[in-house]
């Protein structure tokens, strides 16, 4: 009963947290030999196939790195599923989109100001990181309802940049 759903990239597994038994996509328990090598570093052997896995578990997001590909891991309890559904409904009612910083950097130029009308794909601001200038474009047409950043200010990754309505 107390199974938690694990979303690993586009795959879905379930985990019985009390026993630690993992069920694969086919519903059968996974016969895995798991060895911890160092913090977050694992060797897993399943039916003779060997995997070298790195995990980083965070409060916000957990990921696994395998062969330098990074996969998101989401752990979802029943309660999480309900709140997710509610949040999703709230989001679609309100037709605004908030664009977040895709990388940390310095805002070098605002091409549009708050209140400006923008077309889909139009540049809104320029963010500079590692000596490259990157134009952040409007993901949809609308009005810039709010500009969260100013020129010469730095933004962290995922900081809110602007909202289009």
């Amino acid at each position, binding site marked *: 009963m107390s199974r938690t759903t694990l979303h690993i990239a586009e795959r879905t597994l379930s985990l019985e947290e009390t026993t630690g038994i993992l069920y*694969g996509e086919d519903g059968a328990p996974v016969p895995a030999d798991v060895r911890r090598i160092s913090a977050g570093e694992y060797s897993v052997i399943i039916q003779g196939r060997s995997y070298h*896995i790195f995990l980083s*578990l965070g409060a916000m997001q957990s990921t696994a790195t395998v062969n330098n590909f*990074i996969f998101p*891991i989401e752990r979802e309890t029943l309660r999480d599923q309900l709140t997710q559904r509610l949040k999703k409904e709230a989001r679609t009612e309100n037709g605004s989109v908030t664009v977040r910083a895709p990388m940390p950097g310095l805002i070098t130029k605002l091409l549009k100001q708050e209140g400006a009308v923008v077309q889909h794909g139009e540049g809104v601001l320029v963010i500079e990181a*590692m000596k490259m200038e990157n134009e952040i474009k409007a993901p949809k047409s609308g009005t810039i309802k709010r500009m969260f950043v100013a020129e010469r200010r730095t933004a962290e990754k995922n900081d809110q940049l602007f909202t289009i309505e």
Partner: protein
Amino acid sequence: MKRKPITKILIANRGEIAVRIHRSASEMGIRTVAVYSDPDRTAPHVLFCDEAYPLHGTTSAETYLDIGKLIRIAKECGADAVHPGYGFLSEKAEFARAVIQAGLTFIGPAPETIDTLGSKTSARDLLAKKKIPIVPGTTKPINDLAEAHKVASSIGYPVLIKAAGGGGGKGMRRVDSPEELEGAIERARNEASKAFSDDRVYIEKFIINPKHIEIQVLADTHGNVIHLGERECSVQRRHQKVVEECPSIAVTPALRNAMGTAAVEIAKAAGYVNAGTMEFLLDASMNFYFLEVNTRVQVEHPITEMVYGIDIVREQIRIAQGEPLSMDQASVVISGHAIEARIYAEEYDNNFLPSTGTITHYQPSEGPGVRNDSGVRTGSEITMYYDPMIAKLVVHGRTREEAVARMKRALREYKINGVKTTIPFCEMVLYHPEFIKGTYDINFVAKHYLVPDGTLDAQEAAAIGAAFAAERKTGMKTPSTPVPSAGSPWKVRGLHE
């Protein structure tokens, strides 16, 4: 010219190239001096070099680009030479001049040569006069927008806006129509002024689907100039090279000879001394056009080293000491094939955006024919302050086929955790039929929109899930008594003795 033995080199750089320079110098019995910014206090170049001095500061401008600080440290520590590496001040004549004025040896060409060739426009001017084919466009920086419009429409769109004072794709913009020109110039100027503190730009015809082929040149103070064949660097994204190979599959011995001869002529025309690279575009009809000279050691120099068995940094130091080249053109022998994959801390699945963070695990590839030049270690912090390239993986094989197979193996073996890297992207390149055929050009990446597909099969997902379950179990153990620190048997025994 009189010989001036070098006993201690200050390396005015950071990252993998600082480590690389240390290695050759150290093998020659020369002491090495590292300099470092605050975030680089425990970087590998600081750990490797014999001496290390702080530059006090964080940004490039207040550290690795501060000529005054670098010269002061060099004099105070008793260095007799400075190696600039690539990037930073390596192509700044002003820096070379300051080094020489301080009575030290600059390991690179003379400041006057850097002035002429480092400015792409004066290099174009010089070579146009020498009848060496250049890409059509201006031979002077453009003054204003009106002039830019006139030039662009006379050579025909698409055109390229390029920084007169730099390279590496910074300050470079493709322009397809007159409407885009103004914005592109502005953006290019901003980038160029930040990257090279020089906002001059010029305009070149955009050559459709060329290959990027460059020739390595070595020139000593005794008038000897030789070339070490070509490198093909057509796998580029955002005008930055990612995978390079030596030799190029497109270059026949006759073409190599023609391009090599042109490169040697360029060096001679400019009175060039030390190692330099002449970059060319090669079109589909095997016409080559001079692009620019890089008056420094190139990032991708190791592939030439592996194929020709010559240590280019060592030659640079020997040349700077006034020694003759250790080989002549006739003794330059090509052997096998080498490939380099540049490993950047970038989001391979999201437009190569910088990926910052801490490298929590770093385990480079090993084994036959593999060379790894790196500037990071486990625990390194990747910040937004410096270039995101963290390592260069280089392989050598007897044939191209063997080198390709070896690179695939080595990329798969390379383990980096904590930041996203371009390793999955490089793997895609190595498996791509057009790369394998060798018919790719500089639009290869854009044309095929190579986004690595990180699809998981059911068993891989199960393996991750199993590790995740184990890690959560470890994390959930919060015993009332503290867990004894994982003491090594050595320590335990020591306590009881």
